[in-house]
């Protein structure tokens, strides 16, 4: 949100900055020098540069993971430019935008100004949402809630960042997390003070925020004792982006009695429907730790975009009586491949986790649920409930389920249910016989299938997710 305020207030600076970048953009390639340049450009303190360099050194000795059930052309990391946030070609008016894209925006009911923003059309300096954003900013300040770009928080709250950065996802965690740690561009930082229930969903600006998401985004959310926050990430509208690789890291920390609800709607470009070419690779590391007793972290995701998705939002349930939840809808249509799921690590006593995963495969799409539930020795009376359902549309797609279970405490209780079904010919015929077209019937049945997950989304988002599902399913039947 502050992004947009900044942008408007610092209008002149911003434009100057953009030109600067154009002149000074570093050629593609990754090296210590590149990292030093990034860090210098952001005027970062030395400790952060050191951290980036350590991450880079670690990354150099790592192998790109290949265990996921996805196939893609190998990425040449020396061909990517790491210097700045992705820059979109500015178009002069909506007339220059792909009409197909505009049709989708209309279907989603996105206002014109926002359409421009999403499509990368130059927007007027002042538009309505700015004033609204300012009001919200005052409101948040009143409660002591911190919500700002990561790069700014590094300067304003270095102690908080130092304490928490990498505390949930260390740079050693995996290949993409290491890469992100070395070169991350920007992201969001959220801190909810003790006893504060964040007065609003940190979401109202999600579309605007989404505009500047870099390919290596870094999000850190800390909820102090007895606090509560709901954060929304993403955007239902398909987004233009010239960067193919996205490797974000999200870290959540919930202290005693705190609750963090993190909702995502991801709809990056899935690639050409016929060939799958040009789509985004979305390799994200998301993890939260329930540090304190009675804390709770809830992930809800609706993944409809990207060519390849590799994503496992996880919870470390350290505090006694802490709760982890994962609600997911993942769709793979046309040539999309999704390998997604979660990991619930039960450490504290009486910890509880719930996993509800709904996979939809259509066209030539391949959808994999990969989940792990780990009950450590000390996790007395830990409980998990998992339900993984897959639905297939057509006979060229695939659904795969890999539930891993590791139980080291005899008092642990696990319940796992899994189903795979085709959209039944009898269901479609029943709908057809009532005058409902096959396309409408499919989206109705799929939305019904996803209902338990959509119910977890904040109201406004849920409606959009439903519409998004309809659009994403277009061309999946007949």
């Amino acid at each position, binding site marked *: 949100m502050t992004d947009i305020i900044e942008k408007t207030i610092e209008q002149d600076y911003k434009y100057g900055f953009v030109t600067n970048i154009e002149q000074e953009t570093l050629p593609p390639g990754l090296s210590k020098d590149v990292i030093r340049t990034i860090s210098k450009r952001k005027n970062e303190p030395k400790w952060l540069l050191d951290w980036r360099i350590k991450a880079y050194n670690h990354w150099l000795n790592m192998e790109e993971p290949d265990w996921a059930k996805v196939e893609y052309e190998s990425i040449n990391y020396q061909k990517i430019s790491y210097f700045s946030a992705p820059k979109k070609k500015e178009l002069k008016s909506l007339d220059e935008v792909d009409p197909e894209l505009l049709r989708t925006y209309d279907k989603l009911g996105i206002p014109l100004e926002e359409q421009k923003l999403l499509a990368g059309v130059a927007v007027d300096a002042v538009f309505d949402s700015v004033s609204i954003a300012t009001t919200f900013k005052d409101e948040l300040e009143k409660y002591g809630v911190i919500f700002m770009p990561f790069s700014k928080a590094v300067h304003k709250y270095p102690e908080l960042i130092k304490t928490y950065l990498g505390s949930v996802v260390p740079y050693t965690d995996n290949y993409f997390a290491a890469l992100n740690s070395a070169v991350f561009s920007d992201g969001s930082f959220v801190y909810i003070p003790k006893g504060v229930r964040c007065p609003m969903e940190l979401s109202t600006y999600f579309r605007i925020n989404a505009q500047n998401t870099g390919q290596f985004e870094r999000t850190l959310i800390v909820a102090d004792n007895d606090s509560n926050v709901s954060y929304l990430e993403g955007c239902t509208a398909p987004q233009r982006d010239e960067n193919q690789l996205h490797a974000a890291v999200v870290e959540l920390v919930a202290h005693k009695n705190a609750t963090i609800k993190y909702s995502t709607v991801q709809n990056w470009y899935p690639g050409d429907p016929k060939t799958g070419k040009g789509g985004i690779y979305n390799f994200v590391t998301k993890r939260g730790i329930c540090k304190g007793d009675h804390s709770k972290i809830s992930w809800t995701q609706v993944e409809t975009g990207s060519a390849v998705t590799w994503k496992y939002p996880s919870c470390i349930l350290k505090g006694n009586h802490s709760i982890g939840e994962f609600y997911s809808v993942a769709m793979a249509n046309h040539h999309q491949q999704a390998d997604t799921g979660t990991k619930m690590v039960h450490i504290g006593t009486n910890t509880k986790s719930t996993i509800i995963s709904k996979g939809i495969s259509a066209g030539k799409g391949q959808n994999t649920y990969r989940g792990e539930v780990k009950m450590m020795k000390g996790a007395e009376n830990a409980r998990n409930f998992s339900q993984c359902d897959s639905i297939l549309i057509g006979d060229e797609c695939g659904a795969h389920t890999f539930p891993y279970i590791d139980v080291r405490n005899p008092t642990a209780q696990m319940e796992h249910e899994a189903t795979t079904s085709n959209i039944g010919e009898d269901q479609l*015929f*029943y*709908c057809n*016989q*009532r*005058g*409902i*077209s096959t396309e409408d019937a499919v989206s109705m049945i799929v939305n019904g*299938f996803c*209902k338990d997950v959509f119910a977890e989304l904040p109201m406004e988002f849920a409606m959009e997710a439903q519409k998004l599902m309809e659009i994403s399913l277009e061309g999946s039947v007949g």
Partner: protein
Amino acid sequence: MLNIKSLKASIDGKPILKGINLNIKPGEMHAIMGLNGSGKSTLANIITGRDCYDVSDGDVIYKGDSLLEKSPETRALEGIFMSFQYPVVIPGVNLTYFLKAALNAHRKHRGEEELDAMRFLKFIREKIKQVEIDEKYLKRAVNEGFSGGEKKRNEILQMITLEPSLSILDETDSGLDIDALKIVANGVNQYRNKDNSFLVITHYQRLLNYLKPDFVHVLIDGVIVKSGDMTLAHKLEEKGYGWLES
């Protein structure tokens, strides 16, 4: 209304219908009786457009046009309705939403304005009274956890909601207790008038006693072996089907 001419159909190469002729005029109710496996549901499915059958001969004319090339939803929108022998469960889709989608598809087809949620609710609350369905079912998923009788009443609810010209009731009476049977029969009788036609498929005369069809046909092994009026139904109840087989 509906004219079936020497219709022959098979499934997986196995002949099921072996030359059916049937002419249903506006306002008429025809009953088809026959044992399990004689081809009654097959006939209903072919009229409504289920595509797993091969029609090798004959034609089905509805309001002057052949139906065979039309999609199931076009046939539905043009006024053909089937009460399913086995109504289908659609998990997660609530009945109100489903009924509204179906009704609005019909209204759109007729060039009428679609009903918004509020107006639809008002409309459907009146309809459910006619088939004595409790309002709480409107919030449930389509047919999920419905008893046999509730499913069949729900089929009739859909019939009176969509207001078809031709209604095919495929064993809507089977599995119903006497109270539910009366409710279903009442729903159908209230909807009957000089323009609407019915094709009622059943094994038993029970339902027919309430509906009093104009014609009764007996289907054996894919052929209509005898046609008559209600006295034929009584005779079947008394003597069974044996005397009709050659």
